[in-house]
C-alpha cells in the first residue's frame, strides 16, 4: 500500500485555499494512494470534513496535526479518530500565543465542511509555535495511542535536526519521542539515512497546494491504521518513493 502522512488543507495559513478536503481526497486517489493523513498547522479542525470525504471515496485517512513545538520544531501527530485529534488541538490551542491571526500577514484559515462550505475563519495564530515541548507532545500523543513523527528533518528551518542538531531521545533507553522520521520531497534518502540512525523513515508530500498532493509517498506491506503503521515502523519496513526536484512551494 502507498500512503502520504503529511498534507495541509486550506485551514493552514500558508496553504492554498484550493486545498478543500474533497479536493485533497480526489488528488490523493488520483495519485494512487491507499491512505493519507490530514496534518494542518496546530489544528485538526478540518478533520471532521475530510473524514466524510475519505469515507465516501473509500480512501484510508488518519487525523492529526503538524504541531510546531516550543523548540520551533515541526512534528506530525497522528490518530485513528477525529475526536482524539481534536483533543490534541484543544491542548495545543491552550498553549498558543493570545494574539489573533492576521490573514493579510499569515493567510486565511477557513474551517470547512465536507462540501467546502466555510464554517468559520479560525482566529488562533496557527503560524506560531505553541508552548508545548517535544517531550510533552510525545507523552500526550502516545498516552492516546497515537503516532509521533519528526517532520522534514532534512530542512534547515523548523526541523528537529535544523533547530536541535540531533533527534532528541529520553533518558530511559527503551522509549523514544518519535515513532518515525519524515524526509521531504526533494532530498536523496541515501544522503540523510545515516543521520537518522535506526528510526523508521517515511517520505511525505507536505503538500500545501493541490498539484503537490502525494507526489511523493511511502510504501509498505500492511494495514493503513495507527496499529498497522506501528507494526510497519517497528519492522522499519517502509520503502520511499523517488524524490522530486520540482514542486510549487510551501
Amino acid at each position, binding site marked *: 500500500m502507498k500512503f502520504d502522512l503529511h498534507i495541509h488543507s486550506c485551514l493552514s495559513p*500558508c496553504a492554498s485555499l484550493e486545498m478543500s478536503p474533497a479536493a485533497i481526497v480526489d488528488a490523493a486517489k488520483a495519485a494512487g494512494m491507499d491512505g493519507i493523513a490530514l496534518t494542518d498547522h496546530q489544528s485538526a479542525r478540518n478533520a471532521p470534513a475530510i473524514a466524510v470525504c475519505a469515507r465516501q471515496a473509500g480512501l484510508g485517512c488518519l487525523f492529526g496535526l503538524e504541531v510546531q513545538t*516550543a523548540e*520551533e520544531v515541526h512534528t506530525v501527530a497522528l490518530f485513528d479518530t477525529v475526536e482524539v485529534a481534536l483533543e490534541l488541538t484543544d491542548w495545543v490551542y491552550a498553549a498558543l*500565543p493570545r*494574539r489573533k491571526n*492576521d490573514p493579510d*500577514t*499569515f493567510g486565511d484559515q477557513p474551517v470547512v465542511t465536507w462540501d467546502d462550505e466555510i464554517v468559520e475563519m479560525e482566529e488562533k495564530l496557527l*503560524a*506560531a*509555535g505553541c*508552548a508545548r515541548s517535544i517531550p510533552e507532545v510525545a507523552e500526550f500523543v502516545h498516552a492516546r495511542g497515537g503516532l509521533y513523527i519528526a517532520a522534514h528533518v532534512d530542512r*534547515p*528551518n*523548523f526541523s528537529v535536526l535544523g533547530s536541535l542538531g540531533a533527534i532528541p531521545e529520553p533518558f530511559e533507553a527503551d522509549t523514544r519521542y518519535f515513532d518515525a522520521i519524515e524526509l521531504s520531497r526533494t532530498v536523496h534518502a541515501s544522503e540523510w539515512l545515516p543521520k537518522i540512525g535506526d528510526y523508521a523513515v517515511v517520505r511525505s508530500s507536505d503538500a500545501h497546494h493541490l498539484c503537490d498532493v502525494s507526489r511523493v509517498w511511502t510504501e509498505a506491506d500492511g494495514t493503513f491504521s495507527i496499529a498497522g503503521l506501528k507494526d510497519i515502523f517497528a519492522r522499519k519496513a517502509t520503502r520511499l518513493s523517488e524524490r522530486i526536484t520540482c514542486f510549487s*512551494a*510551501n
Partner: protein
Amino acid sequence: MLLSELTQKLGGTIVVDKPEAIIRSAYTSDLLSDVMGHCGDESALITIQNHLNTIAVCTLAGIEAIVICHNRPIPEDMKVAAEREGVAIVTTPLSQFAASVALGELEASVR
C-alpha cells in the same frame, strides 16, 4: 541608524532595501516565538532564521530590518514577502554575536 550605515558596520549586503528605515534598537534571537514576545518596533532583528515566517513576525512586531547571519541564503519566497511587506533584509558573514557587537551602539529592543 540608517540601513546603509547598519549594513556597512556588518560588512553586509542589502538583499531587500528600505532606505527610509530608521533603526533605533536591535534584538538577537533565532526563535520566532521569542522574537514575537520580546522584540519591539523600529528595530533590527539579528538571526539565522532565513524563513518566510520571519517576515510575518517582523510585520506584526514592527521590525524594520532583518540581519541574516553567516550569509545564509535568502529563499525567494522570503525575499518576495519582504519586498511586499516593506521589511529590509541584510546578509552578513558575521555570527549573531559578532553582528550584535558590531551594532552595539543601538539600544536593546524591548516590547
